[in-house]
C-alpha cells in the first residue's frame, strides 16, 4: 500500500507567545498542518496570531485548552484531532478542554473541514505539534534546574528530573514562551499511547443534547434578514421573466430581487474552481424578516422559465448510459495483459450489468449560509467544507480582494459531500452584495433536494473470462452521467490479481449538477464488483470466499507500485469476518451475504444476515471487520462504522431520484425514502488492532454494505438484485424457489 510521505517543517507552522494573563499560547495552522505537503509562509516572523487557526493554551495553573477550529460534519474529527495533540503533549485527556470559537468570533478563519482523510493527513503533523509543545516545556524546566533536557521525563502534565524534582507544565510556561521552537522532536511509539486508542466522547455532546446554537441554521446577528431563492424548476430551464406583485405584498417581505449577474463571473476561468457547480440561470430572491415569511412568499412568485438545454428524463438517461456501455467511446484507466485474447480463449464468460440512480445528499440540516457585505469587508458564516475555494470565488465574483473576505465555519448538520460545493455561498454573497444587509439564505427541504449536486446515475458492465477453472480476464466498464471513477480507483481490488485486466470509463455531459457523495466514486462500484464476485463464484461452482482469497495470493509481493490495497490486510479482514460472523455455520433460516472492499485507505469486510419474517426477507444483522490502522477514538469510530453501513443499506434499498423533463420527481421525505429505525439491523463491529497509521472511517464501510445485503438476498430468495434501489422490485423480495441451502 502506498501512503504519501508527509514532509513539512515544524517551524513553518508553529509559533509561541506568552499571554498577558500568564501562560503560554502555541499557535499553529491546522489547515497547513493537515495537508500532505506544505508551502511555508514567506516569512514566518511576519505572521501574527491571527494567521493561525489553531492554538494550544497552557495556563499558569497547568490547564490545557486546545482551540480546535476544524468544524464538524459528523465524523468526529473535532474530537479525534485534538486527541492527537494531547497524546504527545502528554497531558490527561480529562484535563484537556477542547474549545471551538463561538460562532461570532473573529479568530477562526481558513479552516479545513474534516472528512475521512483528516486523520490520515493530520496524524503526523498534529502529533508533532503536541510533541513540540511538550519539548519546549521540558527545555524550560531543564534550564531552570540546570540539567540536560534528556534527563527529564513527563507524565500527565508533570515534568520530573533525575533527582525526582517536579514542575507542573504551568510552572514553566513563562520561560517556555521565551525559548526557540525546537527543530527535532521524538514521537511516542504506539505502544506508549495513552489517549490515542481510548474512548473519548464527542466534545460537543453537552451542547448538542441541550440544544445550544451550533449549526449554520442557528447563526444569527442583529438586523439579519432571510432570503429564499426561487431556482429553475428543471435542469435545463432558465428564468425568462417573473411577476412578484403578489409576493411583495405579503407579510414580512422586505424586497424581491433578481440575482445571477455576479454568478456568471464564476464561470470565468480565473474565478472558477471545482466547487462551482450550479445553475447559470437568473434566480428570484425573496428577502423577508423571518424564514417562514421568506419561504412562503417564494411560493407566490409567478415566474416564466424557458428551456435552454435538453430536459432529461430517467428513461433517456438509462438509454444513454446503456448505449455508452455498448459503444466504444471509452477512456482506458488501466490495462494489464490482453483481455481480448483471454476472452477469445475462455471456456466460460460471465457478463453482468449493474445500474444505479441519481442520489441527493439530503443532509439533515438543509443548505444555508450567512453573508454581510460592506465596502470594507465580506463576512461569510456557515457550513461549507471548502472554505478556501469559497472565499476565493466570492472575492473573484464580486471583484474584491480575498483579504477582505472573512469566512467562519459552523458545525455542519451532515455533509456527505454536498457541502463541498459552494453554490449557496455564491448565492448569498450576491444577495448580500445587492442588499447590503446581514442576510442568510435558507433552503427548504424541497430546495435542498431539487437543487442538488447529485451522485450521478452510474452503470457498470463487468465481464470475466474463466479458463481451466481460473479467472483469466476481468473487464470493468463504467458509464456515468458527467463521469464518476477516476484517479487511483482502477488500482483497487482485483487489480493485480488477474493477468488480463482492464478498466474503461465513459460519460455523457448532463446538465444536471453532479458531484461527490459519501464514499465518492466507489459507493456504487463496490456493489457492482462485490455482487459480481458472488455471481462469478456461483457460476464457476467455487467457494465465494476462497475465490477472493485465491485472487489475493497473486497480489502478495507484487512489484506493481500502483496497487492501492494490501493483499495481506484484505486477507486478514476476510478471515476475521468469516470467523466472527459464523459464516456458513448459521442455523437454517439465516441467509448470509459477504462483501469485502478497500477504499479511502481502509480495508473492510461485511457479512449480512437475512432472515425471512412473515414471508419477507429482513436484514437482521451485519458483522463488520475494519482495518483502519490505529484507531484514534474507538467510541467515535464505531459510530462512524455503524452509520456508514446503515447508510449504505438504506440507499441500496430505497434511494432513488427520478427525473422527468429535467425535474426531480422527489422533493421531500414524503416521496423520498430514507432508512428509518425499524429497518435498521443489529451491527457487530470488529476493529483490527495494529500499529499502522490511521486511515479514513467516515466512508469506507458504506460501499460494501449494499453488496453484502444483495448477496444475502440472493441466498434468501434466489433472486439477484443488480439494480438499486431494491425497493423498485418488490416482487423480487419473494422467494423465486424456496431456498434450501444456506450459503457458506
Amino acid at each position, binding site marked *: 500500500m502506498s501512503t504519501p510521505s508527509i514532509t513539512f517543517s515544524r517551524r513553518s507552522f508553529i509559533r509561541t507567545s506568552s499571554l498577558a494573563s500568564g501562560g503560554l499560547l502555541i499557535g499553529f495552522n491546522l489547515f497547513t498542518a493537515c495537508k500532505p505537503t506544505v508551502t511555508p509562509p514567506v516569512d514566518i516572523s511576519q505572521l501574527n496570531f491571527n494567521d493561525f487557526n489553531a492554538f494550544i493554551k497552557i495556563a499558569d495553573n497547568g490547564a490545557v485548552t486546545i482551540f480546535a477550529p476544524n468544524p464538524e460534519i459528523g465524523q468526529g474529527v473535532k474530537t479525534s484531532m485534538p486527541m492527537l495533540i494531547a497524546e504527545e503533549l502528554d497531558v490527561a485527556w480529562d484535563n484537556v478542554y477542547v474549545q471551538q470559537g463561538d460562532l461570532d468570533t473573529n479568530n477562526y478563519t481558513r479552516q479545513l473541514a474534516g472528512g475521512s482523510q483528516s486523520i490520515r493527513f493530520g496524524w503526523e503533523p498534529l502529533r508533532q505539534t503536541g510533541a513540540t509543545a511538550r519539548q519546549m516545556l521540558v527545555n524550560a524546566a531543564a534550564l531552570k534546574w540546570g540539567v540536560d533536557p534528556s534527563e527529564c521525563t513527563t507524565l500527565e502534565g508533570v515534568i520530573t528530573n533525575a533527582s525526582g524534582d517536579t514542575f507542573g507544565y504551568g510552572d514553566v510556561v513563562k520561560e517556555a514562551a521565551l525559548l526557540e521552537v525546537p527543530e527535532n522532536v521524538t514521537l511516542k511509539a504506539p505502544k506508549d499511547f495513552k489517549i490515542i486508542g481510548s474512548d473519548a466522547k464527542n466534545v460537543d455532546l453537552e451542547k448538542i443534547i441541550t440544544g445550544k446554537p451550533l449549526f449554520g441554521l442557528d447563526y444569527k446577528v442583529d438586523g439579519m434578514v432571510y432570503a429564499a431563492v426561487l431556482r429553475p424548476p428543471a435542469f435545463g430551464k432558465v428564468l425568462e421573466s417573473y411577476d412578484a406583485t403578489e409576493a411583495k405584498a405579503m407579510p414580512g417581505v422586505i424586497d424581491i430581487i433578481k440575482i445571477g449577474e455576479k454568478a456568471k463571473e464564476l464561470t470565468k476561468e480565473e474565478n472558477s474552481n471545482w466547487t462551482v457547480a450550479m445553475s447559470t440561470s437568473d434566480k428570484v430572491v425573496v428577502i423577508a424578516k423571518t424564514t417562514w415569511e421568506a419561504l412562503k412568499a417564494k411560493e407566490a412568485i409567478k415566474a416564466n422559465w424557458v428551456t435552454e438545454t435538453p430536459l432529461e428524463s430517467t428513461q433517456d438517461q438509462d438509454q444513454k448510459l446503456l448505449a455508452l456501455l455498448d459503444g466504444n467511446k471509452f477512456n482506458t484507466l488501466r490495462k494489464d495483459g490482453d483481455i481480448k485474447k483471454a476472452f477469445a480463449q475462455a471456456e466460460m464468460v460471465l457478463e453482468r450489468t449493474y445500474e444505479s440512480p441519481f442520489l441527493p445528499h439530503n443532509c*439533515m440540516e438543509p443548505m444555508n449560509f450567512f453573508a454581510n457585505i460592506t465596502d470594507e469587508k465580506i463576512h461569510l458564516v456557515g457550513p461549507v467544507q471548502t472554505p478556501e475555494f469559497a472565499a476565493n470565488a466570492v472575492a473573484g465574483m464580486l471583484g474584491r480582494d480575498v483579504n477582505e473576505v472573512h469566512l467562519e465555519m459552523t458545525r455542519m448538520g451532515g455533509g456527505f459531500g454536498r457541502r463541498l460545493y459552494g453554490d449557496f455561498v455564491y448565492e448569498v454573497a450576491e444577495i448580500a452584495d445587492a442588499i447590503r444587509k446581514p442576510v442568510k439564505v435558507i433552503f427548504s427541504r424541497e430546495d435542498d433536494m431539487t437543487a442538488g449536486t447529485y451522485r450521478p446515475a452510474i452503470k457498470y458492465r463487468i465481464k470475466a473470462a474463466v479458463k481451466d477453472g481460473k479467472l483469466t480476464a476481468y473487464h470493468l466498464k463504467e458509464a456515468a452521467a458527467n463521469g464518476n471513477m477516476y484517479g487511483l480507483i482502477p488500482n483497487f481490488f482485483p487489480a493485480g490479481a488477474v493477468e488480463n485486466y482492464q478498466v474503461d470509463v465513459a460519460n455523457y455531459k448532463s446538465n444536471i449538477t453532479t458531484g461527490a457523495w459519501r464514499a465518492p466514486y466507489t459507493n456504487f462500484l463496490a456493489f457492482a464488483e462485490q455482487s459480481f464476485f458472488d455471481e462469478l463464484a456461483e457460476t464457476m461452482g467455487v467457494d465465494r470466499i476462497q475465490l477472493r482469497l485465491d485472487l489475493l495470493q497473486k497480489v502478495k509481493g507484487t512489484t506493481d507500485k500502483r496497487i492501492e490495497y494490501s493483499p495481506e490486510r484484505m486477507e486478514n479482514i476476510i478471515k476475521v469476518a468469516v470467523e466472527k460472523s459464523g459464516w456458513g455455520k448459521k442455523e437454517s433460516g439465516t441467509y448470509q451475504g459477504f462483501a469485502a472492499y478497500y477504499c479511502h485507505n481502509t480495508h473492510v469486510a461485511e457479512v449480512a444476515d437475512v432472515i425471512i419474517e412473515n414471508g419477507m426477507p429482513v436484514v437482521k444483522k451485519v458483522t463488520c471487520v475494519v482495518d483502519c490502522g490505529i484507531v484514534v477514538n474507538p467510541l467515535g469510530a464505531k459510530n462512524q462504522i455503524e452509520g456508514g453501513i446503515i447508510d449504505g443499506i438504506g440507499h441500496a434499498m430505497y434511494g432513488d431520484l427520478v427525473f422527468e423533463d429535467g425535474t426531480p420527481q422527489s422533493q421531500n421525505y414524503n416521496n423520498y425514502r430514507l432508512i428509518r429505525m425499524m429497518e435498521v439491523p443489529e451491527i457487530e463491529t470488529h476493529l483490527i488492532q495494529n500499529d499502522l497509521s490511521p486511515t479514513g472511517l467516515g466512508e469506507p464501510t458504506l460501499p460494501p454494505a449494499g453488496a453484502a445485503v444483495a448477496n444475502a438476498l440472493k441466498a434468501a430468495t434466489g433472486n439477484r438484485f443488480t439494480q438499486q434501489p431494491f425497493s423498485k422490485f418488490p416482487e423480487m423480495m419473494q422467494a423465486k424457489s424456496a431456498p434450501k441451502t444456506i450459503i457458506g
Partner: protein
Amino acid sequence: MPLYTITVNGKLKNVEVSKDTPLLWVLRDHLELVGTKFGCGIAQCGACTVHLEGNAVRSCSLTMDAVDGKSITTIEGLSENGTHPVQEAWKELDVPQCGYCQAGQIMTASAFLDKNPKPSEAEIKAAMHGNICRCAAYTRIFKAVELAATKIS
C-alpha cells in the same frame, strides 16, 4: 396580525405573527430557541419535535392558531442542565454524529418514555421510526432509549 400567548419552557410568551405561522419558526426566529430544528417542514422527519402539553408533536406542522394558550417544552427546557434521564443516556452512549437530528430524537424519546416507561424492543423501534437520522446513528439511538428506560423506572 393576531397576538398569541403560549407558555414555552414554563415562561409566558407573546408573539404577533400571521395565524398560519408554524410553531417551529416562532421558536427559532422569534423566541431565539434554535435547539428545535428544521428538517422537512412537512411532519416527515421529526427534527422539529417538541412537547405540546406533554405530547411529542411536529412543530413545523402546527400553526400558531392551533397552539394558542398551550404549554410547550423544547429541548432547551427539557431539564435544567441536560440532566433528563434521556439526555443522560444520550451522553453515556455518545449518541450523536453530526448532531442535527438529536434534539428531535430526544424529545420524541422523552415523551414516549413518559407514557411507556417499560417499553419492549419493538415498541421503542416503532416510537422512534418517525425520526430520521441521516447520519444513521440509529443503533445508538435505540440503545440510548433502552438505557433511559432503565434510568426512569
